[in-house]
């Protein structure tokens, strides 16, 4: 029963994704490995679309992933399940929330959660990044290490990173557009 599976996976994501924005990624990566709905590489396309369209990134990626899994009903189920834990938790503890935030226990938990959300996102996307920047399929051993590097892709990646760091106010959509144009021109 695909809708039930979607509900469960995205409910879990909504309940445990802490840190906003890209925090849903590690959970979506796990889903991509466990179910045939989408591949880890599809995740990059989902992020690209989510960053260049209106709406919160977490909601956008959930809708996209649900659509990939089971069309329009899948998108609706995934998105509703993602927000359900938030709604329940906030309704249950709305009155105590201001106190909740300043409690030392929550402060301590976030002391551990902040570095973890960075580690989790990087860990989940590590392999996908490697596939985009390297010809991992050419790997046969250390002797032909140089054949593995996709040099044009790595060069483009470094240029973009430099651009993102030098122009932090520029919206991500412009870098994604640059990626599309250079992809068509240079065929990485």
């Amino acid at each position, binding site marked *: 029963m695909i809708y039930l599976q979607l509900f469960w996976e995205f409910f879990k994501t909504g309940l445990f994704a802490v840190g906003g924005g890209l925090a849903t990624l590690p959970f979506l990566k796990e889903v991509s490995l466990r179910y045939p709905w989408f591949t880890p590489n599809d995740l990059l396309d989902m992020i690209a679309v989510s960053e260049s369209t209106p709406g919160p990134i977490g909601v956008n990626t959930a809708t996209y992933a649900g659509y990939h899994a089971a069309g329009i009903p899948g998108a609706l189920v995934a998105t509703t399940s993602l927000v359900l834990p*938030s709604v329940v938790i906030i309704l249950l503890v709305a009155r105590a929330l201001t106190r909740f935030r300043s409690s030392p226990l929550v402060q301590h938990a976030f*002391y551990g959660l902040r570095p973890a959300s*960075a580690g989790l996102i990087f860990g989940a996307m590590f392999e996908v990044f490697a596939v985009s920047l390297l010809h991992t399929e050419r790997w046969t051993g250390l002797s032909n290490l140089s054949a593995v590097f996709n040099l044009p892709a790595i060069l483009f990646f470094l240029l973009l990173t430099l651009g993102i760091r030098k122009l932090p106010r520029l919206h991500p959509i412009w870098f*994604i557009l640059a990626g599309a144009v250079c992809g068509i021109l240079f065929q990485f």
Partner: protein
Amino acid sequence: MHPYFDLFLTFARVGVCTFGGGYAMLPLLQREIVERHGWATEDELMDYYAIGQCTPGVIAVNTATFIGSKQAGIAGAVAATAGIIFPSIVIIITIAACIQQFAHLAIVQHAFAGIRIAVCALVLQSVWKMAKKGVTDLPTALILLITFAAVAFFGASPVGMVLFAAAGGILIGLFRRPRT
């Protein structure tokens, strides 16, 4: 206008105008919630937003639910949440359907090969910023390394790692307290 409908429309407007979520949403919330509707003061909004950050789930959704529930109870929370996700659902479904139609074209595949490299750079930059904010001492550096390695090389479940990090943070915090 009916209060539920008003909540739905207001947050749908915030959803449509937010590109990228997170901090991009704050100025819009300020205009809609504080200036236009008077549903909260500037300070209250900052509080709501901070609470949205320290409850699980998408920050924008948490903030919407919180403001909705303060204004009109459970139904208000549902109306505000439905409002903030409504534009995403419509826009993403439309785009996903279009991309599926054209995904087989060579030019689209080349474009996405380039886009994926751009996404790598963007995500890494976000992770770098999060790491700089989160890693303040040796224990936090270790938590980052452990969660990274567990997920990247040992296929650990992110749920377990989130629980581990929260428990670790609490333990270290309690352990340290007497000394300071």
